[in-house]
């Protein structure tokens, strides 16, 4: 039981960490509030499913299934998230702060509604089941272990690439753009381009994570991609402290661990499980409020700094 708890925490923790690490880049470094995170995640998952699914037959209502290998679907997921970021970022990035947050949230809701109501994309509310996926047994690994390793690899690669991206003159330019756009412009920097680049670059791993999520659950359906996912990763980011990549990962791991912990308790009754699930949400909310109120990570970093 302990082993399965650790594995599922690592698997979902690493996968969602890809989202929080990307949000960390967008928000803490780029200064952009994206409340539509789930849309890029969903774009990746749906692109993966559409590229790998067999062509429609029988009762299927989706219009396209390209029956391609998993790696092609995986690449398509990154490309789809990138494309979606370009389309949504280009008209909205002139907006600041809460205006951008509202617009991205609205984009995600519209996207969710399209997935739900336009059945030719992915069977509407039913979604696409039995999503193709590589079998970890091919390299001698168990299912959960295989996908845990894949999620960890994607997380570490994302964190490493973003770290390299920011520890450079480009990172300096990103910080300068966030701190004072007019001053950055006055030394010839194209700040609109920098903001769009960061928005698009950080969406790509979110798309890959979406593909991984589709592989793990073998299902893509609108119900899996509601605004709750966005709030979940924002809470995880706030819990871990939004300043550092490591903080984003630790916050996500802690939040996922907490959820998985409730899941492994062998409840005697359905009622007991329901109460535990509700209590878990209440406690997550209280934790979130406590962290926001007392900002323990800020205090720690100030102590370390002085």
């Amino acid at each position, binding site marked *: 039981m302990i082993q399965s708890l650790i594995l599922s925490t690592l698997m979902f923790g690493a996968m969602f960490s890809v989202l929080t690490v990307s949000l960390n880049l967008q928000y803490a470094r780029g200064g952009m509030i994206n409340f539509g995170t789930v849309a890029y995640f969903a774009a990746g998952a749906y692109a993966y499913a559409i590229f790998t699914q067999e062509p429609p037959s029988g009762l299927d209502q989706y219009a396209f299934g390209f029956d391609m290998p998993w790696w092609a679907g995986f690449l398509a997921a990154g490309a789809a998230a990138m494309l979606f970021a370009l389309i949504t970022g280009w008209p909205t990035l002139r907006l600041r702060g809460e205006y951008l947050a509202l617009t991205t949230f609205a984009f995600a809701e519209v996207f969710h509604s399209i997935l739900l109501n336009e059945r030719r994309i992915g069977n509407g509310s039913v979604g696409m089941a039995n999503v193709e996926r590589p079998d970890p047994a091919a390299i001698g690994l168990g299912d959960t272990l295989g996908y845990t390793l894949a999620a960890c690899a994607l997380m570490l690669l994302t964190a490493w690439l973003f770290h390299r*991206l*920011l520890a450079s*003159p480009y990172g*300096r*330019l990103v910080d300068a753009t966030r701190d004072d756009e*007019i*001053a950055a412009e*006055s030394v*010839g920097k*194209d700040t609109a381009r920098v903001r769009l680049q960061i928005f698009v670059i950080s969406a790509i791993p979110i798309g890959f994570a979406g593909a991984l999520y589709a592989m793990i659950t073998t299902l893509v359906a609108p119900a899996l991609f509601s605004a709750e996912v966005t709030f979940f990763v924002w809470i995880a980011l706030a819990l871990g402290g939004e300043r550092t990549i490591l903080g984003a990962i630790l916050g996500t791991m802690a939040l996922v661990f907490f959820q998985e912990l409730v899941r492994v308790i062998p409840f005697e009754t359905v009622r007991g499980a329901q109460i535990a699930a509700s209590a878990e949400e209440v406690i997550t909310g209280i934790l979130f409020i406590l962290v926001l109120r007392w900002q323990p990570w800020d205090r720690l970093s100030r102590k370390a700094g002085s």
Partner: protein
Amino acid sequence: MTDTILKLDGVVKEFAGFRAVGGPEGLSFGVRRGGFLGLIGPNGAGKSTTFNLISGVMPPTRGSVTLDGAEISQLSTAGTAALGLGRTFQTPRAFGSLSIIDNVMVGLAHPEEGPLAAMLGRWKPAERQFLGRAEAALERVGLAGRRHDSVSNLSGGELRMLEVARQLVREPRILLLDEPTAGVDPALQGKLSEILAGLHAAGTTLIVVEHNLGFLMSLADSVVVLQNGALLAEGTPDDIRRDPAVIAAYLGADHEA
């Protein structure tokens, strides 16, 4: 025929119907290549707005601004900066999360500043060379000893010098300074005066908004006086000091010519 590098012709800027710059006929004046122009006038005369119109922070409502004959009034700030124009701000602007040396490094047009170069690590060789240039600029403005300090530890005057350093590394052809001596102590003012004289001697065109006339008049070779957004007078520092209209509007009657 003098060689004009920057020319304003009939420039008007209105904010919701209020004419901040332009007066009845629009604002027109030229800046000589390699010249040192002082831009003075009472508070609210439109000096900083004129800087904003030249540097592309905002476009004029009407009129044209040309740099070397090319229209620049519709360019962005980054666009004018790319043409070799540099400026500082009335309220100094700094990048709060960056160290002092990084604040200056941002001023450099790093050839490997893109995201791909960052991930591939291609930026390192150029960075070392640029670090030397940034350090030299900090040396010139007297901040060399504090290169790794945070900008939040700088005083208002030091922030101004930091802004000057960020422009110095870019070696702009034409540099606009907005009240560079405000809040700067006399020792640093001396240093600033030396820097500006050095730039002037090296051929950089300078336009300086300043209320400290002792500082400005000793450096400038021509002066433009604005009042209510319109040109009140234009001439050499000596002409301006003796101009009765300027004395009445700005210098004050008890001004010693």
